[in-house]
């Protein structure tokens, strides 16, 4: 009896997949990043005509006045302050070899967050800020940090803070591999996965402002501008890697390794379509 119930639930899941898998319309296969970013931003400004474009970086707090007031209150004593202070200290502390993070980045790492991720034409892949920080550590004989929280969140919090207000400036160089990375990121963003059959877009394009259980879903536009974030739900700070992996597990998909190609590419895509919106990180979320 039990096995029959299990099998029938699996059959039901399969039937649901079949129903949702029917393609309604097919997008062009050749990506047009400039036009697509314009359409992406227009979608959200049309959907939320009262929200200014730059305010979307405040995620769920941009969705209505009550939420916005909550955000203003929270910013009086921001819960990410401890992490920010720790990140500032870590950033200035030299490695054992005497060098520091500043030696690995343009402008000594100050005010550069808005340029990440970028497409590295030598490597032929997307390089995120989290990845660059760990590569900096390893190049200087230090062990890499976990990508999801604590030290990595503190370092990226400080770097984001030094870029506050600077608009995302993600570039796609004239290299077919860069365009492919953008397209792969876009595909990942819209692909349904996990037993719940959700894509990133199911929540953050189709339902921003709506509740999923007790939480208000953030719009996809500007969603990375506020990273890293302090989340009450996490009881601490989390990086972009943490956001992607937990999104996957929440929809009952096995997360990929942090900084796997898919996550790097989706960060590239999501950052590119938010070009022009200001960096607001570190942020705080419910």
């Amino acid at each position, binding site marked *: 009896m039990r096995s029959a119930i299990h099998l029938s639930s*699996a059959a039901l899941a399969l039937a649901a997949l079949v129903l949702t*898998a029917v393609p309604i319309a*097919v997008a062009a296969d050749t990506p047009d990043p400039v036009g697509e970013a314009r*359409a992406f931003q227009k979608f959200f400004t049309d959907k939320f005509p009262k929200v200014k474009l730059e305010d979307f970086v405040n995620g769920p707090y941009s969705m209505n006045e009550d939420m916005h007031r909550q955000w203003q209150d929270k910013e009086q004593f921001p819960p990410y302050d401890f992490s920010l202070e720790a990140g500032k200290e870590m950033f200035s502390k030299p490695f054992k070899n005497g060098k520091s993070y500043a030696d690995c980045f343009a402008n000594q790492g100050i005010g550069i967050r808005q340029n990440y991720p970028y497409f590295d034409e030598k490597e032929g892949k997307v390089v995120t800020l989290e990845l660059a920080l760990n590569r900096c550590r390893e190049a200087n004989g230090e062990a890499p940090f976990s990508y999801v929280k604590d030290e990595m969140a503190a370092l990226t919090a400080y770097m984001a803070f030094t870029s506050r207000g600077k608009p995302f400036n993600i570039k796609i160089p004239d290299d077919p591999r860069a365009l492919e990375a953008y397209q792969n990121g876009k*595909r990942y963003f819209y692909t349904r996965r*996990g037993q719940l059959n959700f*894509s990133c877009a199911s929540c953050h394009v189709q339902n921003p402002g709506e509740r999923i259980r007790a939480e208000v879903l953030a719009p996809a536009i500007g969603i990375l501008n506020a990273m890293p974030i302090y989340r009450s739900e996490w009881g601490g700070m989390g990086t972009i890697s943490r956001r992607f992996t937990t999104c996957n597990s929440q929809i009952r998909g096995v997360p990929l390794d942090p900084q796997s190609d898919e996550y790097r590419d989706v960060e590239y895509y999501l950052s590119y379509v938010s070009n022009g919106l200001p960096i607001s990180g570190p942020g705080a979320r419910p």
Partner: protein
Amino acid sequence: MSIIRKAARFKFTVSLATVLLIAGSAPVFAAASDADFKNAYAAAEAANKEAGSLRNQWTTTSAALAAARKAAEAGDFDKAVASSKEAEALAKASIFQAISEKEAWKAMEIR
């Protein structure tokens, strides 16, 4: 035949089919063996491996596989086989999802 009678006959047929389906799926005639578990588990694991190659495994598949191993260790092979079959069905659904989404994602794109 009236509509009510037709509806009643249809309802009976559906109920009968459901009973037969459940009876056919449940291991009522013989207890499962270690070999049954190993076969069922291997099939589930192979399907989950294929889902992994498509970068689309489900956490529920992993949980069902773990439940199957735990039941087998406890000597409950009926439960171990049932959990293995559940894992296989879930893994196959995740494979179907990954394959259909290769094109279906385009329908969701903002344009």
